[in-house]
């Protein structure tokens, strides 16, 4: 059973920081329409993207910003960044109930995170992806909408065996599917780790072109999934025979790529697929940036195409279709269970397969 319910009372990536500015941006997150914009002093705000009057989207033209206020493009209802309506057309009295729901916002690591839920986040903060906004790394990024339920993307990313087949010629080589994996689940922290270390592998074009490595490589893939939203792939690539990382954690003989995905459910069968690739080499080489941007976007779109097809297939299946799971799914199954627990979905064994 692929998790379909949403986990509420969680942080979700609503946008990259660079997407939020002085023009309204509308995103639907967990079925909730969210308006994002930046106040004149640079603060990102998030509030309901529907005017209380006749539900016109405040992110849609001719709605617009005046200073820090947003004016509905239909009848002119005007809201402050705290969601309170400050003006209605043709009357002095503003109805007491004329206010929009606002969402807690944290801007961190180049992402704008919003808290979707009924209770306040309190001291809970989003997980970190520091490489995306850190000196010593250069990052390329993008977002692709997915017409599939978010659980399919979680499944996809927790099992990188599919690289061999779906992404051959980009990031996939035979060794990826052939090398055993180690899976760890930290129940307390709610994190899934999946590691696959290839001692002697072909260098896929994604890494050969960007690093300049000509021969075979040692290739490590260490996944860290923080459900529901953040996925980190620590990728280490080094020519075969290179020294391993030193005891102090330094690793000067290898190339490091931090692949980050934010998996944000939009509706029951659509998802925002935010992706970023940060590297610690060729920092100022625009050609490498362009290559990695285009290559990774191609890889993401290969996943999008496959998962969009899969969603259509699954949508026509009966609810309790029987899946087959094998060893490569160990991490994905763990992720599903954590997500189901977070979403409060009762377990209906043996459906979780």
């Amino acid at each position, binding site marked *: 059973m692929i998790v379909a319910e949403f986990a509420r009372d969680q942080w979700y990536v609503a946008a990259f920081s660079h997407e939020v500015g002085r023009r309204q941006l509308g995103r639907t997150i967990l079925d909730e329409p969210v308006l994002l914009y930046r106040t004149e002093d640079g603060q990102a705000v998030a509030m309901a993207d529907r005017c209380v009057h006749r539900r016109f989207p405040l992110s849609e033209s001719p709605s617009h910003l005046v200073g820090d206020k947003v004016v509905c493009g239909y009848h002119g209802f005007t809201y402050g960044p705290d969601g309170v309506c400050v003006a209605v057309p043709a009357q002095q009295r503003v109805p007491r109930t004329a206010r929009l729901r606002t969402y807690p916002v944290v801007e961190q690591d180049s992402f704008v995170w919003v808290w979707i839920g009924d209770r306040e986040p309190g001291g809970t903060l989003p997980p970190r992806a520091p490489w995306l906004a850190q000196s010593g790394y250069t990052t390329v990024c993008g977002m692709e909408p997915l017409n599939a339920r978010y659980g399919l993307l979680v499944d996809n990313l927790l099992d990188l065996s599919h690289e061999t087949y779906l992404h051959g010629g980009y990031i996939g080589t035979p060794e990826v599917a052939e090398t055993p994996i180690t899976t760890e689940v930290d*129940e307390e922290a709610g994190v899934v780790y999946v590691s696959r270390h290839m001692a002697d592998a072909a260098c896929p074009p994604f890494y050969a072109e960007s690093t300049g490595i000509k021969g075979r490589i040692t290739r490590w893939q260490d996944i*860290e999934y923080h459900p529901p939203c953040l996925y980190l792939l620590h990728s280490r690539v080094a020519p075969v025979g290179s020294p391993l990382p030193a005891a102090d954690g330094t690793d000067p003989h290898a190339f490091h790529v931090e692949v980050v995905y934010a998996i944000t459910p939009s509706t029951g069968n659509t998802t925002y697929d935010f992706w970023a690739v940060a590297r610690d080499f060729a920092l100022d080489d625009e050609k490498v940036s362009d290559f990695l941007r285009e290559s990774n976007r191609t890889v993401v779109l290969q996943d999008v195409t496959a998962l969009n097809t899969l969603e259509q297939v699954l949508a026509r299946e009966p609810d309790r279709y029987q899946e087959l*799971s094998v*060893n490569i799914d160990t991490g994905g199954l763990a992720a599903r269970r954590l997500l189901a627990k977070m979403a409060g979905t009762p377990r209906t064994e043996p459906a979780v397969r």
Partner: protein
Amino acid sequence: MTAADPRHRPMAAGDPEPAHRRHGLSAARTLHRVHWMPGTDRLHAICFCGAENEFDDPVVLWDWLLGHPDDHHPQPVPDSPAPAAVLV
């Protein structure tokens, strides 16, 4: 089979630290580990309580791990604190 068995070496390229330790997170007491045993189709599961078991089906494996302590044979957790004094 014990944890010292060389077949438990989880990865092929050296003996790197697990990801959570290399990236600065501390190992939690509720850490479940699953090693795909090289050269086999078997999965070796280690519960945080120290119980171990082998499986060839990841679904059955997670049922067992998350079913702790059912069917487990817990061993003392090395860093478990001494029992608090009983107040009377």
